């Protein structure tokens, strides 16, 4: 064996690569592989689209009922964020309205610009800015809930300021003149004459914005708030059943916002009735 190998060694060294049988076997295998690819494959990269949903998936009432406790937890997170955000909006909006009415241009112009800017840009990006942006550029850190409350508060403060402005403008000019004639201080004029008449006029609009804020609050899902939207997407990922959780929160929103809209309409009618 060893003698044969030693005698054949020089022969292998001098033989051309094309005369080695291994080369031909490799070439034939490669061509055969290409032929098989050509026959079996197609020219375009496509994937099968047989990812149709399970046809046996049916609406499942026991499953819906089993989800209710989690949904109520999530609802409380969203609802409290809305309420806190709206309290912030009502207070901040009043100062924005005063700032916009200010005699000094140095106050009124920047405030008007801020209101216009915040009103015409999406809340989603404002939340991104408060949650991711500020943390990336400054040492300010907000938790998810704080960022949502602050974002909702500022966004709806600009809306509320318009409601207040309309309310203040609806106070008849004679009230201002009477206050001046009675030599009231500006602070007294505001707190005793104008605001008590302006706020009831603004109340229905403020109520509408509370409902609108509640409808925008699930956006907090984008900055990891564990509210209604988080509940629905998590359940969808866990059980692969998107229909029940999403329709549940949809119906949940209708159950809250329709009665709220009805109450606001009644409030509006009642206030206008009182004033006649």
């Amino acid at each position, binding site marked *: 064996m060893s003698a044969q190998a030693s005698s054949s060694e020089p022969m292998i060294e001098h033989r051309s690569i094309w005369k080695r049988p291994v080369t031909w076997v490799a070439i034939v295998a490669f061509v055969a592989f290409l032929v098989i690819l050509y026959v079996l494959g197609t020219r375009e990269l496509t994937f099968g*689209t*047989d*990812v*149709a*949903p399970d*046809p046996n*998936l049916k609406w499942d009432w026991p499953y819906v009922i089993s989800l209710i406790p989690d949904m109520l937890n999530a609802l409380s997170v969203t609802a409290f964020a809305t309420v806190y955000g709206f309290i912030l909006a009502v207070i901040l909006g009043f100062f924005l309205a005063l700032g916009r009415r200010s005699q000094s241009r140095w106050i009124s112009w920047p405030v008007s610009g801020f209101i216009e*800017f915040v*009103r*015409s*840009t*999406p*809340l*989603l*990006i*404002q939340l*991104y*800015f408060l949650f*991711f*942006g*500020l*943390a*990336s*550029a*400054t040492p300010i850190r907000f938790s998810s809930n704080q960022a949502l409350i602050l974002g909702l508060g500022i966004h709806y403060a600009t809306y509320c300021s318009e409601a207040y402005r309309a309310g203040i403008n609806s106070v008849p000019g004679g009230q201002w003149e009477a206050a001046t004639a009675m030599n009231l201080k500006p602070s007294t004029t505001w707190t005793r004459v104008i605001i008590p008449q302006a706020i009831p006029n603004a109340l229905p609009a403020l109520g509408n914005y509370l409902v609108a804020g*509640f*409808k*925008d609050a*699930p*956006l907090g*899902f*984008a900055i990891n708030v564990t509210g*209604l*939207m988080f509940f*629905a*997407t998590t359940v*969808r990922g866990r059980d692969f059943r*998107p*229909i029940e959780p*999403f*329709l549940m*929160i*949809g119906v949940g*929103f*209708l159950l809250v*916002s*329709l009665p709220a*809209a009805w109450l606001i309409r009644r409030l509006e009618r009642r206030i206008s009735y009182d004033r006649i």
Partner: protein
Amino acid sequence: MSGLLLNPSQYQRLLEGAWFTVQILGYSFVLGVFLSLVFGVLRLSDNRIVRGIALTYTEFARGISSIVLLFIMAYAVPILMGLPQANLTLLASIALGLNMGGYGAEIIRGGILSVPRGQTEASIALNLTNNQRLRHIILPQAMRVILPPMGNLTIEILKGTALVSLIGLVDLTGAEALAFNGQAAPTFEGVRHSRAVFDLNVLVMYFVIAQAINLLFRRFEARIDARFESRKGEIAPVEDAIGASK
């Protein structure tokens, strides 16, 4: 100041996203205006059942959160309807359009109610059909009341389009995330910007789009007002008519 500006390639990416935002706004606007016209007119129908259907639709579209409607459209509707691979752009536009239609129907209804009743009575007296009355008498006059709130509503829908990034479409908001995450690539060249700079730039871009919409609506309003003024000029010479009959 230059620290607040992004790189040209990043701006290009954002502009591509902005174009998609404008497109999806266009689709939902067309659907929204159609729905608001139809349901705004149906809200004033004489038939109680038709009125009830229109009321149900507007209350539904206004009562449900637009983000929830969008997610229902994107995830639940394809399964309920058995669509294997749904067109997300279409579904998102439908969701936003449905939402806009609810609010728009109320605007149109208010506009139609603002037209003096004598106009309706006069057109009935002139033997115009219902459609003619609506097309030539009522809607042109209601337009002056309809347009300003419609412009605000369109800006609200523009703000709503930012939500489509959450279901995986690459609009301006989605492009922002792509451009920002692209900075993490080892092949990235140029200055890396913080997330805050990206957010501010995108906010300004949305603001510019909103102002453009505002401007368009203002011009449209001015044109409609001008038409009204000229109409007055044509109809005014009543004395001439009296003089001619003498």
